[in-house]
């Protein structure tokens, strides 16, 4: 599809001969995300159809729904959206704080504290892509009765971008300028034409905190604010109590800004335990209404579903379980650093070895016997802002082919059956976190590799260590002191820019940045860097999409990155609970619209 086709199609939508939904579908077919397609329409003066993307809300009065009990087997520890790293914290603070808009699961924006979603039609978007103007909803009050206004929005921008505050959300606010137009209008200005404008003030990163309670804690003392643990927001539920790492209680907000909402009188989010017992607590004993993130073998979920009390919800997002083959040498120190980017992995520097490794994992078996509905096999790393899939990648499982490739490349089997060449043996340490499906995957991979003369030494590290950012610990995934590792990486928003920056060379995780870089695999390619930079300034959504597909193809065909299965968000809920979930936003993004059928 070229630019002309695109303009013609947009023209058809404007004339009314093509529905917006039809347009989004066609865009998805050429690999364009739904959010980007809707933004494209917005740029052309067609307001996005946001209302239909959220299921209808039936209750006709506020309250009376009793208690809503949600189970998170990883508990939240902090309730300030600008500090809480990780999904659990973002979801917990979202119970109280709201952004201007959130992402519905079809990739459209849903207004929350905004009166409407900006578009060129309503004057919200400038045609040059350099600014976006948000109109705020009127009559919104904080839980303590104060009015919500543009000053609060401006304050959040100042707060988040202030280096002294050290907010985790700073990346979304640092490079923009926010101007107050009037009490209920703000304008976000960008330095350069910005294709993806819905970042600041949107979704998890956009949760707004009240100026009047945080203004005295907007500097280096930000972490001392008492409201970090006792939030006062604008949402449907008011704060009652919070025990970090344990549970969170809230109650109905009688002055919520939407009619008839919320439905439930009280809300409890209980943390802790493990995924399997959480699944049981919902689907077997029905002690809870909803359980988050069911990282459980599908077999078990299916058997629990058979009880007839609860069901499993599967929402496709961009998360992916994948294997990284280390391009650097983890067994040798170079200038006092293991896996230094100055070193080269003795075996994986041979592309033939990497090719063989990619042929040795049976994704079909993983999907069928281990992950089930929770892990469809994939050949792509970038899968799913709705069908953003590269059509060029294929996966194959063939031990015979792997053997052929290795034979041809001169890797000869030794007496113990393990291949070697020039003193380098194909014997790799393969690490991951302690998690039943991952240990199963390791076993499957190991057996196939063994038949191709490659010995995998399996290592599993307890998740709280593996995923920690503890600089002193050698077993973290960010250090990657192993030949191979496997985990799931998540895609936080519907746009792939944040997601694909994990392979640019300036993000490489190393001693110099305390292993905080986003590029954990230490993959480096000049071509990739160049294309990524190009995509950052590309306003044309179609060209931009093509660039991201190219980036996916570069990493996947290098075989340093071996995608295994997609990981849709899997959750469990009681049959009568009507929830609103989204792949592109947190679980609690629209808690105001949850209700129970009786």
């Amino acid at each position: 599809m070229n630019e002309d086709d695109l303009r013609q199609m947009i023209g058809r939508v404007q004339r009314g001969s093509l529905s917006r939904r039809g347009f989004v579908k066609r865009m998805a077919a050429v690999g364009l995300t739904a959010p980007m397609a809707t933004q494209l329409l917005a740029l052309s003066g067609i307001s996005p159809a946001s209302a239909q993307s959220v299921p209808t809300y039936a209750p006709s009065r506020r309250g009376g729904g009793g208690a809503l009990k949600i189970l998170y087997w990883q508990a939240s520890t902090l309730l300030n959206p600008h500090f809480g790293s990780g999904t659990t914290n973002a979801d917990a603070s979202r119970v109280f704080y709201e952004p201007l808009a959130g992402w519905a699961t079809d990739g459209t924006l849903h207004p929350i504290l905004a009166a409407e979603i900006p578009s060129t039609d309503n004057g919200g978007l400038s045609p040059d892509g350099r600014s976006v103007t948000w109109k705020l909803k009127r009559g919104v009050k904080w839980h303590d009765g104060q009015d919500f206004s543009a000053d609060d929005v401006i304050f959040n921008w100042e707060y988040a971008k202030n280096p002294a505050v050290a907010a985790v959300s700073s990346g979304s606010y640092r490079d923009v300028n926010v101007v107050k137009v009037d009490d209920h209008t703000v304008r976000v200005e960008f330095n350069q034409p910005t294709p993806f404008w819905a970042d600041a003030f949107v979704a998890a990163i956009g949760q707004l905190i009240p100026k009047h309670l945080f203004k005295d804690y907007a500097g280096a003392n930000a972490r001392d604010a008492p409201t970090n643990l006792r939030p006062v927001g604008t949402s449907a539920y008011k704060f009652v109590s919070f025990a970090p790492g344990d549970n969170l209680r809230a109650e109905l907000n009688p002055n919520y800004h939407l009619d008839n909402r919320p439905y439930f009188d009280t809300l409890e989010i209980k943390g802790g335990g493990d995924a399997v017992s959480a699944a049981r607590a919902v689907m077997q004993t029905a002690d809870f209404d909803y359980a988050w993130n069911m990282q459980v073998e599908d077999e078990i979920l299916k058997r629990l579903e058979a009880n007839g009390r609860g069901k499993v919800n599967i929402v496709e997002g961009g998360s992916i379980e994948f294997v990284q083959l280390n391009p650097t040498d983890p067994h040798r120190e170079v200038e006092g650093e293991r896996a230094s980017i100055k070193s080269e992995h003795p075996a994986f520097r041979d592309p033939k070895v990497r090719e063989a490794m990619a042929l040795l994992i049976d994704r079909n078996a993983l999907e069928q016997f281990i992950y089930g509905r929770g892990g469809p096999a994939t050949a792509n790393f970038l899968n799913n802002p709705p069908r953003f899939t590269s059509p060029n990648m294929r996966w194959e499982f063939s031990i015979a082919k792997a053997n052929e490739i290795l034979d041809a490349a001169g890797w000869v089997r030794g007496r113990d059956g393990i291949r070697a060449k020039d003193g380098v043996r194909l014997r790799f340490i393969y690490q991951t976190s302690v998690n039943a499906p991952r240990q199963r995957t390791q076993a499957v991979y190991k057996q196939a590799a063994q038949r191709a003369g490659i010995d995998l030494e399996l290592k599993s590290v307890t998740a709280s260590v593996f995923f920690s950012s503890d600089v002193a610990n050698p077993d973290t995934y960010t250090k990657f002191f192993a030949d191979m590792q496997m985990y799931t990486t998540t895609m936080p928003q519907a746009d792939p820019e944040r997601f694909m920056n994990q392979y640019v060379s300036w993000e490489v995780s190393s001693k110099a940045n305390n292993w905080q870089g986003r590029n954990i695999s230490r993959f480096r390619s000049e071509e990739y860097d160049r294309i990524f930079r190009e995509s950052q300034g590309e306003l044309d959504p179609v060209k931009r999409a093509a660039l991201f597909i190219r980036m996916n193809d570069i990493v996947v065909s290098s075989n340093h990155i071996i995608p295994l299965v997609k990981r849709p968000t899997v959750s469990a809920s009681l049959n009568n609970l009507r929830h609103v979930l989204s792949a592109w936003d947190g679980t609690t993004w629209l808690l105001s619209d949850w209700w129970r059928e009786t």
Partner: protein
Amino acid sequence: MAGSIPVSATASPARKPHIGPWGEAWRRFRKHKMAVASAVVLLILIFGVLFGPLIWTLPIDEIDFTARLESPSLAHPLGTDDLGQDLLARILYGGRISLAVGFTAMLVAVGLGVLVGSIAGMAGGKLDAALMWLTDLFLSLPQLPLLLLIIYLFRESLTGIVGVEMGVFIMVVVVIGIFNWMPVARLVRAQFFSLREKEFVEAARALGASRARLVLRHILPNALGPVIVTATIDVAGAIIAESTLSFLGLGFPPDIPTWGRLLFDAKDNLDFAPHWALFPGLAIFLTVLTINFVGDGLRDALDPRRVT
């Protein structure tokens, strides 16, 4: 009849055939029915894990997705796990490791404990005080964090020298041993204190026995009863400690099916594949139970003061 000379052989009391101390112990052990039964079961278990894999030759890691979570059948007498791997083969193989870890760790703990305890018990005075401080120190150390530390510090260098399985084995055994010798040391020291003042020891000392002889021939054998009981409990403890380490991802690699690891893998499937957890659980249960009974029987058999 003192001093008198028997007139004839027929008048002498019926002479028992001479029984040595070991024969005596065996005679007493046999009287403890549970201990004998347990010893038989334990021997069967040990022979099973040692020679079983020679008879039951299915590989432990053969993945067969067509035979997942099968209940016990002729092809798989103990069923299969969720990758279709044969559980009997895995339990036999895992038993070697679990039992080896259990017994070796016990030997380390008992060896250290007896050494420290007997030195403290014999020396008394300052050396005794110092050694008891050391014991208290070890008792008050938080075990798990220290275990983690030791494993992080030494795992890589050790596995580099002797290979993964052996390296982890040595480390697990040493680590478990190092944290379990204290009760043994205290027991041995207390026994020494009471025994070294006993008349038979005094007699031996009066006859000019050396210190080493006193300890090895006279005191230690008499102190061993309680030590053996503690040792049997240590074996059980070590088997369980190994599963804790595997559970935390610090023990053997996840593809080595020790009994603890098998249980850990099976726990999520407990309600619809109970056989998977049942058999390794049963193996641990039987081992621990029989070792305890055997220990019980041994204590009775080796107690020199007991007259039957």
